[in-house]
């Protein structure tokens, strides 16, 4: 079973500017406003998550998560594929 917190942290690392401080996350249910992510970080994370779960760009624009779990809820609803490992997921981030 893939660790969803770890995947989220790895995706955030890809999505955020290189100078960003490391993100710490204990739960997927933390409100995004309390994670230290800014609005553009959240936008980019959504785009990467859509890539991983094979969601079309037009559909992914409707994603409006309020927590990290919100990304997964959206992806669960619209996914066309699902990675089985962290490595596979990151490999799908084009």
């Amino acid at each position, binding site marked *: 079973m893939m660790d969803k917190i770890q995947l989220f942290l790895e995706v955030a690392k890809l999505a955020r500017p*290189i100078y960003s401080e490391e993100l710490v996350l204990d739960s997927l249910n933390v409100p995004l406003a309390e994670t230290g992510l800014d609005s553009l970080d959240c936008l*980019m994370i959504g785009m990467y998550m859509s*890539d991983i779960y094979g969601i079309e760009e037009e559909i992914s624009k409707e994603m409006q998560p309020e927590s990290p779990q919100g990304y997964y809820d959206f992806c669960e609803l619209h996914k066309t594929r699902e990675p089985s490992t962290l490595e596979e997921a990151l490999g799908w981030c*084009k």
Partner: protein
Amino acid sequence: MIYLTEARTASTEEITTFSDVLYPQKAHFFADTYSKAGSGMVYPPHKLAEKVLDPVLMKTLRENPVKTAFILASGNSHFAGLNPKDKEPNSLTYDYKALPMTLTQVYAGRTAAAFGANDLVMTDASACASSLKVMMDIQSLVRMYGFERVVVLSLEDAVSNTVLNFFGQSGASLTLAKEAEGCVRSAFDPTNEGFYVGMGAVLAIFETENSMKVTGFKPRAELVSAYSAGENSTNAIGQREDGEGFKKAIEGALYAGRIQPFTVRTVKTHGTGTRSNNVAEKTALMNTLKDFVATSFKQRIGHTMGASGLLETILLLDNVKNGFVPEIPNRTDEDVIFLSKPAPAEKGGLILSLAAGMGNVYSAAIFKDMQC
């Protein structure tokens, strides 16, 4: 007083040949900035900026707040990735999925926050004069509005299809076709002329004494004076050969700093090496200063456009620290003013930096070396 304390630069003397663009030419290129750009998730100008965005420096400034402004000197607005596609996809073709990230002010605001620069966020689009033009803004912000620190980041999407095509078509950059005729990069030379386009970025921190007390940074130079000017011209993509714009900028900077012309002995020219710039800049300098040596960097690192003025100034400060002013490459005649050979640096002296941009903008900034 205003001091230049910390600076980071990214530029390269390495050359890449682009045969698949409309006007095939060489450029100074960081290939890694285009890695995965085809995915639409990686934006080359952001990758270029990351070469100078030092996380430790950013944290230091964030944790030692004073009244701070952030300026993104984004040059010709090619930072915004205007039409990066060519007619046919080629090695520089990319698109970007997250459009808000391509907007200069949005990018500036986000980057400013990482510096703790919450008091003012500005962008500047004064073409290739941009990073020197903002020196005039820094003076205003500090002297009139009480800012203690100004962070300047400058770069643009210089090596892109748009820029290579525009410069290639206008004959400003050296194309492979011109090189085949025997043309070699140089400036202020009767035989050789021109430049390649280059990728470059610069980050520079300007501080007052009060800001330096909290950061502990040491001054590399004092920003003594700066001035920007236009000129009376009906050609917004050309230059007056009598050097009116350059002359007004130089005289403005001398006047604003109450500086006597004979005290400025080192000049970093705009130095594109195009015939019109050679004539205009040389005429202006010979009619304003008295006893000086001049160099140009565009023949080494390419024309980094909006970043060039400040980036090249930092490179010259590095050279001065090492005791010399570099020669202008590929000069064919001996010249002790527009240097055909390196000259000893005047440590602690005044340095005049010049830049010019399309749209008839000319900028001059005078720095006092403080590295000795």
